[in-house]
C-alpha cells in the first residue's frame, strides 16, 4: 500500500489549478469540516478487496533483470443503489469478462457478492439492527471486536454505504452526548463511554455535525443555515420605526403612544375589509 492518495503533478502544481467541486457556487462556502469528511470518503483510495496488491515500490523482471516500478491499478467497481441499504464491508459488484475457453470469445460476467441478512449489535446505540451483510463484514466485525469498533475505526472510503456512514455519525453523536441511551444504568453508561471515548479525539463537534452527509445533503444543510442566518426583515417595520422616531423628534403630541401599541393597531386594521360586504366590514 504505497499511497492511499490519488494525486497527480497537475493537482499539486500551484501554477494552474482546475476548479474542483468545492470552488463552484454555494459549495465554495462549505466548511472545512465537510471537506475533511469528503476527502476521507471520496479522495482516499479504498482498501484492496477484490485484488491482491503488489507490495513494495519496485520489482525486478525475472527474465531480463530490468527494474520496473509497481503501479497497482485497482479493479473498477460498480456501486448499485442497494449497497447503500446494507453493510457490504467494502465489497462491490465487479463488471468484466471471463475467458472461459482460449479458442472462444470472452464472455461478459458480473461478480456479485453473496449477501445475507443478519443482525448486528451496536453497544453504543444499545440496539440490534437487521441489515444485509456479506461474510466479509462479519469477519471484519469479529476482527475489530465489535460492530462499533469496526465502524469507528474504518475510514469512510472503506465503509462505502450511506447506511454505515449514518450509523457512524449517530454513534459519534451518542458518544459526544455521553451515551444518553444508558441513562437508566449509570455504571454501564460509564463503561461504554470509557471504552469508546478514544475515538472522539479525532473529531471536533463541528466535524461530527458534518460527518456522513452526501453532497446534496451537505448543500441543503448549508443553504438552510444561510437562509436562517439572514432572514429578511419586512421593510414596513423599518419605515414605521423611522417614522415614529421622526415624529418624536418633531415633538408632536399624538405620538406619545409607544411603537408597540401602534404595531398592535395593525392587527385591528387588518381585520377591516373595505371591499367586503356591509355586514362583513
Amino acid at each position, binding site marked *: 500500500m504505497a*499511497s*492511499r*492518495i490519488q*494525486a*497527480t*503533478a497537475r*493537482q*499539486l502544481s500551484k501554477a494552474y489549478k482546475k476548479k474542483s467541486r468545492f470552488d463552484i457556487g454555494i459549495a465554495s462556502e462549505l466548511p472545512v469540516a465537510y471537506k475533511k469528511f469528503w*476527502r*476521507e470518503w471520496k*479522495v*482516499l483510495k479504498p482498501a*484492496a*478487496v*477484490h*485484488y*491482491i496488491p503488489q507490495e513494495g515500490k519496485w520489482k525486478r523482471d525475472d527474465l531480463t533483470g530490468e527494474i*520496473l*516500478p509497481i*503501479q497497482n*491499478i485497482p*479493479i*473498477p467497481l460498480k456501486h448499485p443503489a442497494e449497497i447503500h441499504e446494507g453493510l457490504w*464491508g467494502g*465489497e462491490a459488484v*465487479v*463488471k*468484466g*469478462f*471471463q*475467458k472461459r475457453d482460449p479458442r472462444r470469445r*470472452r464472455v461478459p460476467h458480473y*461478480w456479485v*457478492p*453473496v449477501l445475507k441478512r*443478519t443482525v*448486528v*449489535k451496536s453497544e453504543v446505540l444499545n440496539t*440490534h439492527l437487521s441489515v444485509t451483510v*456479506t*461474510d*466479509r463484514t*462479519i*469477519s*471484519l*466485525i*469479529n*476482527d*475489530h*471486536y*465489535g460492530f462499533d*469498533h469496526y465502524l*469507528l*475505526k474504518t*475510514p469512510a472510503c472503506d465503509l462505502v454505504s450511506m447506511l454505515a456512514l449514518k450509523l457512524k455519525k449517530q454513534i459519534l453523536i451518542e458518544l459526544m452526548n455521553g451515551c444518553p441511551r444508558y441513562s437508566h444504568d449509570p455504571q454501564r453508561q460509564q463503561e461504554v463511554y470509557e*471504552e469508546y471515548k*478514544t*475515538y472522539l*479525539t*479525532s473529531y471536533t463537534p463541528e466535524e461530527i455535525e458534518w460527518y456522513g452527509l452526501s453532497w446534496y445533503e451537505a448543500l441543503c444543510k448549508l443553504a438552510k443555515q444561510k437562509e436562517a442566518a439572514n432572514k429578511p426583515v419586512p421593510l414596513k417595520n423599518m419605515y414605521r420605526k423611522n417614522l415614529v422616531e421622526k415624529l418624536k423628534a418633531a415633538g408632536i403630541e399624538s405620538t406619545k403612544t409607544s411603537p408597540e401599541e401602534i404595531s398592535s393597531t395593525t392587527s385591528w386594521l387588518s381585520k377591516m375589509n373595505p371591499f367586503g360586504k356591509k355586514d362583513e366590514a
Partner: protein
Amino acid sequence: MFGLRSLVRSAITSGCNINHQQTRNTFILKRKTPVPLHKKGGKPIKLKGRHFVYDLVEDTNVKRKPDVKVILNQFIDGVGNKGQVLTLRPHQAYNEYLVPGLAVYASPQNLEKYDANEEKSTTESNYSSPYVHRTIGCLSRVILQITMSKLEPWVLEPWHISTSFRKSGFLVPEHCIEMPPAQIKGPDLTLQDKEFYVTVTINNTEKVNVRCRIHHWATGLDRLPWEEFHWKKPKEALFPEQAAELEKMPLPQ
C-alpha cells in the same frame, strides 16, 4: 493533502490495537492482461476492454474461516461459567453468543476485565460442573413412583429409591440418597395417596429434593385399579414437616 494520510492513520491507530491483517472474504480477481505502466506522477492509462478480462484467483466464501474466541459474561447452563474462554466456529460464536449478549469478544481489554485466560475453565464457580444446573432442573421435575409389594411386608430402604430412579432413567447411587425422617413400612394402602421427598446430593455438593409416591403392586385380582393422570393430582404430605417444601415444588401441568 498528504497531511490527511497521517491524520487518518492517527485516527485509526488511536483506538485499541487490533490485528491489522486484511480479511478478504470475496471474489479475488486478477487481470489477464496487465495494465501498461504510466508516467511517474502522471495520469493512469485509460483502460481498454482487454483490461476487464479477469481470472478468479480465489473465492474466499468457500474457504474455511478461523475460529473465534469469546468470553462468557455469565453462567450458561451446559456451556460454562462466567469468564470462561470458548473457541467456536465464527457463525456459531456470532449468532449464538455475541449477538444475544451471552459472551463478549476475547479482546485484550476483555481478557483483563473478566480475568479470563485459556487455562482457566470451570475451577472457581458456584456449581461443581457446568451440567449441574440442568441435572437439578430434571430431578426437581420428577415424580418418583416407588413400586412396592401390596402383599409382602417391607421397609423402605435407599436401594428401593435407587431402583426406582433407575427405572425412570436416572442412575443415583445409594450413598447420594437421603431418606425421609421416619421409617416407612408397608404394605399400607393409606400410603397410596400420600407423598414425601428424598434429598439427592449431586457431586457431593448440590442438593435437590425429589418428590416420591409409593404405589402398591400386585397381580391378578389384587391389582389396584388404574388411575388416570395420577401424576397431575396433588396429594397429601406423609410427614407434616415436609408439607411446606412439597407445596413449593411444582407439579406437572
